Structure formats: C-alpha cells, structure tokens
C-alpha cells in the first residue's frame, strides 16, 4: 500500500515540472510576450511601467534564470498582479473564486456517483432490456444537450413560470437576515440547478463506464462460481460484482476534474456564479495573461490532486494493492 502510494507520489514532481515547463513556454509564445499585452491594454503604460514589468518577469535575464523564477513563483502561487483594470493580485482573485467552483464540482460529482452507479449496475445486469436502452439514451442526452440551452429552459420553467427556484446568483439579497436553517436552504436553492446541470452532463461517462466494468466482472469465473454455489442473483451482484466493478470507477472520478472545470465556464456565466470558470473567461477576453496562466496552473494542480486522491482511494479499496 505504502509502496504504491509512494510510487504515485514520485510522479507528482515530474508532472509539476512538466506543467511549469509547458506553461512557461505558453507565456513566452504568446504574441508579443508578456509585457506587450499589458502595455497595449493600458494606453498610459509609461516607459517606467514597462520597465517594472520587464523586471517583474525578469525578461532581461537569460531564459533558464527566467524559468527558475517562474518555478519559484509558481510554487508559491505568486502569479503577479492581474492586467485587468483593477490590478489586483491574481492569487487573491483566484482565492476568492475557487471555493464556489469547488463546491459545485464536488456536489455534482457526488450526484453523478449516486445516480450513475445504480444505472450502470442495473443496465449491465439487465443488458439490452428496455431499462438499458432508455437509460442509455437518457444519459447520453445529458451529455449531448447544449448546457446553456437546457439551463435557460430550466430557468424559465422553475424560475419564471413556477417560481420555485431563484434564477441565478449564489444567495438572495436578504440572506444575511435569515436564520441558520434559512440561510442553508437559501444556498441550497441557488445551487440546485447548477449542480443538477453539471451532474446531468457527467452522467453518461460514469454510468457507461460502470456498465461496461460490470459486464466484464459478471463474465468472470468467480461470479459464475458464486452463482453455482446457489447464491441469489441479487446477492451475487451486490456483494461480489459491484465491489469489484466499482474499483476502477474511483480513478475516473479523478480524471473528470478537468472536464468539470471546463464546464464551469458555461454554467457560471449563465447562472451568474462568481467562480473560477467565469473569472477565467473574463481573463481570456481581456487578454489578462497573468490571470489566465494562474488559473491554468491552478487547474492543472487540482487535476493532479484529484488524480492522486483517486489513486490513493483505489489503493485503499483494492485488497491486492492494500496488502502488496
């Protein structure tokens, strides 16, 4: 177990170096390099300002020194001030946006897990049944429907026509004057649609993966052996097959981090949620290089952490590794 985790941990620095190299290259390949964009955006950018930027990015240094600095800054999460008119530190901006995005992602991942696993199991057990077909079409519909369109349709239905849910935002205006339970309920109502949407889009991947794992496991000898022993189908499926089919699913959770982050751009924009996706989109549109680089690197970190957690989870759950 420990050996396995350590082996996984050893890969992390290699990946970090890779991420830093790739992002470093990206900055320097950006048209005009880092300062030209900043100076362009600000007509009042004086020579002095340019010089400050040159020094900040160390552009007067040889490349390897620049890279060394980038590495140091990256490891301290210091991405410098944003080029946006407010000129705030990129790390501060990300810090205030990241909790919302993570909350929604974790919740929708939980939702995916809860819904997709049973669907996957049942459609594998009843392969080619009507349930299998209908659930297949349904989960793929979730993947295939353009998120922003479905979001608007749901807003019209639940927000305008029925008036059950708020349209957008995180909390209502009178949030602060509510009781503790009231505040919780208020937040939950605001998060419901975004989480449902993010979850609906991710169902397909997870449930199909679960289904095919399950199919593979069912075909294994020990399942046949269990059946031969006279155990009921229900018991065989739940006790033996599911446990083994679930294992690889843990790893796919880690892999879905980048997709969920990418999807955040769309639903945070449509639901007016001040998260990292929206911030990234605004940064990109304003050619805010430090912000864009900061979020890309943080996004990569998050993926890395997601993968690591998945690996550890896998190791904890799989007896072969646990004892190995």
């Amino acid at each position, binding site marked *: 177990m420990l050996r396995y985790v350590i082996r996984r941990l050893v890969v992390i620095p290699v990946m970090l170096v*890779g*991420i830093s190299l790739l992002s470093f290259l990206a900055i320097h390949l950006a048209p005009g390099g880092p300062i030209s964009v900043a100076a362009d955006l600000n007509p009042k950018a004086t020579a002095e300002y340019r010089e400050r930027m040159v020094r900040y990015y160390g552009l007067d240094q040889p490349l390897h020194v620049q890279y060394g600095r980038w590495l140091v800054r990256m490891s301290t999460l210091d991405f410098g001030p944003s080029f946006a008119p407010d000129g705030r530190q990129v790390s501060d901006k990300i810090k205030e946006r990241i909790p919302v995005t993570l909350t929604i992602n974790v919740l929708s991942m939980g939702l995916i897990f809860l819904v997709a696993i049973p669907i996957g199991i049942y459609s594998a057990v009843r392969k080619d049944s009507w349930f299998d077909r209908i659930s297949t079409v349904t989960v793929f519909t979730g*993947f295939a*429907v*353009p*998120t922003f369109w479905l979001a608007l349709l749901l807003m019209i239905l639940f927000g305008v026509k029925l008036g059950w849910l708020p349209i957008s935002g995180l909390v209502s205006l009178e949030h602060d004057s509510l009781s503790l339970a009231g505040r919780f309920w208020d937040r939950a109502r605001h998060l419901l649609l975004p989480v449902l949407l993010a979850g609906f889009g991710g169902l397909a991947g997870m449930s199909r993966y679960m289904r095919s794992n399950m199919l593979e496991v069912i075909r294994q000898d020990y399942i046949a052996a269990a059946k031969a022993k006279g155990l009921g189908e229900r018991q065989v499926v739940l006790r033996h097959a599911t446990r083994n089919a679930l294992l690889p699913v843990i790893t796919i959770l880690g892999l879905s981090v980048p*997709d969920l982050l990418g999807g955040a751009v769309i639903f945070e924009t449509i639901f007016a949620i001040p998260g990292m996706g929206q911030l990234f989109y605004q940064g990109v*549109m304003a050619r805010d290089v430090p912000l*864009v680089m900061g979020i890309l690197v943080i996004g990569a970190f998050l*993926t890395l952490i997601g993968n690591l957690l998945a690996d550890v989870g896998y190791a904890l759950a799989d007896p072969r590794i646990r004892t190995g």
Partner: protein
Amino acid sequence: MAGASSNFGDFLRRLARNRLAVAGGAVVLFFFVLSAFPNVFSRHEPNRIDVLKILSPPSADHPLGTDELGRDVLARMVYGARISLKVGFVAVGIATAIGLLVGLIAGFYGGWVDAILMRFVDVMLCFPTFFLILAVIAFLEPSIYNIMVVIGLTGWMGVSRLVRAETLSLKERDFVAAARAQGAGDARIIFRHILPNALAPVLVAATLGVAGAILTESALSFLGIGVQPPTPSWGNILTAGKDNIEFAWWLSVYPGLAILFTVLGYNLLGEGIRDAVDPRLRGR
C-alpha cells in the same frame, strides 16, 4: 483484433442488431445528406437579410421561421449543418492524426521515447481542455480554422493512449515478427502492419470526438468566440436564439435539437461500433 477488419460482414451484422446504434447512424446520415445538398432542402439564401420579416414564426415560405435579421432559419440550419459538421470532422481529423502518430511511436519504440511522450500526454491531460481552447482562440482570433485546429490540437491525448496500448500488444504478435524477418523497416511495420490493426478503437474515439467538437463549438459560440456571424453554425444560431428564447422559440428549439440529436447520434453509433468491433473492447 486482426479478425475485426477481415470479418467486416460480421461487424456490420453485429452493428445492425444494435437498434440504438442503427438509430444513431440514421440521424448521422440524415444530417450528412442535409449538409451535402443544402440547396435542395432550402429555397432561401442563408445570409439574405429581410428587415421586414424579422423574427417571423414558421410559415409556408419559411418553414422554420426567420431570425433576428429576417433570415430564413431553415436555410441557416442547413448551411449551418455543413459548418458544424466540418468543424467536427476537421478537428477530429487533426486530433486523430496526432494521436495516432504519438501513440504509434510511443508504443512501437518504447523506452525513453515512450516515457517522454506519455509524460507529455499526462501533463497535457492535467490542463482543463476547454480552458486551453478558450485561451488559444481568444488570443488568436475566433475564425473557423482556428477553432478547428485548436479543438484538434487539444483533443489527441486520449487517442494516443489508446493507440499506444494497442501498439504495445500488436508489436509482440507473430505477424509483426514475420514482417521484420522479411526485412521490413520500422516505418513499413508501423504503417502497414500495426496501424491497420489499431484502427478500430480509433474509429470509436473519432466518432465520439466529432460529437464532442460540435458541442465545443456551440459552447464557444455561447461565449461569443465560436464561428463568427454571419457564417451560420448551429452553435451561433442557438446563441442568437437564446436571447429570444421565450418570444421566438423556433430560433432556439431547432438548432438546440439539431445539436442534441447529432451528438446523441454520434455517441450511440460510436458505442455501437465499439460493441460490434469486439465485445472485449467495451468500456475502454
């Protein structure tokens, strides 16, 4: 694997038994025909503006209504199908080509070449793809070419992993050894013997990839950096429709459903192909 390509008839028969895959294939085919002969399906020009007919509901002359500039929605949908499918196919073509090359090289040569290429793939996979696409397109310019190229350049990693895995197992097979014994060079072995046998999973990945690229284009359109108007794409018709979603339902419902059905169609077809190629391949 070698059996799959030689028994093409078996493959088709297995595919035809899968009703969902057949339905998916039918949808895919339908939009293909539509985009191949746009002028057959629409009497109007897609960019013909008529200020007097802005946002008219469906009628005999305009079966799907008109848009916010009085242009015929059917014509824009049909020509938009062409653009949207083109984005899907070119992007996937690029992704597949790169993925194949990287996967074949990494799998065939192994060792440090493999290690470096696969670590590179791992690193690329760490960055949220949609973030990368957004960043590159906004910094360049949202032309249809840039969109296709960027979606392609950020979508090859999965293919390369698949191909590498296939290559690793294929290169140990007898027919490779036989070819080598006859004095075939690396390039010949890779492209004549390994590549054709590794194509099946690639076909599945590509089918799913087309669907993904069409969705990505619509998401980019929503953000204002997809295919630029007046060139029609399903994504930008839908985006124009969203601002009139309650008043002019026809402007969002048709492109929305077109995207939905097409993406669904490609997915069901892709799954079907995967099952039909080799039952063992499921779920990879």
